[in-house]
């Protein structure tokens, strides 16, 4: 993976997604819950992609 946005580019995006997810879930049920799931899933997806890339780079 390239150094997109410097060292903290991707981590900041993940952090913002997480906090947005945590707050939106509090605000209601239904559609905003989906926003919460997506936001919380994003760090997991990023980890999965990074691990996959490392395995294939071998």
């Amino acid at each position, binding site marked *: 993976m390239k150094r997109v946005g410097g060292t903290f580019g991707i981590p900041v995006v993940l952090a913002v997604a997480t906090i947005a997810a*945590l707050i939106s*879930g*509090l605000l209601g*049920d239904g559609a905003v819950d989906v926003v*919460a799931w997506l936001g919380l899933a994003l760090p997991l997806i*990023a*980890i999965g992609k*990074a691990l996959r890339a490392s395995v294939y780079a071998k």
Partner: protein
Amino acid sequence: MRTATVRTWCWVHKWTSLVCTVFLLMLCLTGLPLIFHDEIDAAFDDRPPLAALPKDAPDLPLDAFVRTAVAMYPGERPLFMSFDDDRPVTNVTTAKVAQPGRGDLHITAIDRRTAKPVGALDEDAGIMAVILRLHVDMFAGLPGKLFFGFMGLLFCASIVSGIVVYAPFMRKLAFGDIRTNRSRRVRWLDLHNLLGIATAMWVGVVGLTGVVNTLSETLTAVWRADQLAALTRPYEGQPPLPVAAWGSVDRAMRAARAAAPGTEPQFVAFPGTRFSSEHHYAVWLKGATPATRQLLTPALIDARSGELTAMRSMPWYMLALRLSQPLHFGDYGAMPMKVLWALLDMIAIIVLASGVYLWLSRRKASA
């Protein structure tokens, strides 16, 4: 960053982590089943079934439930009344004194349609109760809780310092790079960095809200001494209202709901308890919409006259305490959120364990 600065931050990260890691590992492990405690409790539901009554059977007055509970345990006084959402049941807590120690109280579940007890709630029974107490205070009461609070603060410091030292470690690496061609220690270092930085916000929020939750008794005591005392100033100096002089709970409930239309009662705190004054029924009302459900407002009703004395929203620290519960438990976004919570918790366990491994294998690396 200067080498000396990096070294200082590394030192902070190492020691704040090492001191709290054992406890944090335990908290992450016990927290995992607790995420699903609703489902686990439901699967092992041994609550006696309720009497079969017509669907439109009306609810009996609240005062009848109080009489039922007190009759079960003569010599005790009512402390709290709460309402089940999933069945027509009201729970009444009784004890010999208004602020009893742990285990010195009884919770009676009462059928709202018959005012007959459907069983006692033993919150300390079962494996989930053991796990919960390990997670909350290690069976050590308030000191145990506050100790966890301190460990949580160290954990927060370890997260912050971890984010700081992430920068120098990643200077030549891209996000997620795992140097698979290097030693095992380097591979684990890269994994520790990846998992740690990607979940830093979640771990930080769950950690910080956990710390706030350890302060629940403390903050409630502050609220009682500060806001509640101000709201009930006219009653200052009066002796506590004896139980025999308490009026109707139903009347208090009507007065509270009339004062705050569009709210639902969460629980009623009787005079003398932690959540009320010596002279009032405190009816704790919650908003009826998802966004306001977490916001509780106590309506203080003179226990003798049944009239509203005061009603004021909770101060910021009680609001923070209240919001810290869902943000710590992850129970506000249905099952997918619980599953994500569990996955993130497992990643936190890997980060903690790999941190210990990196520390244990440090000599080999420097040799």
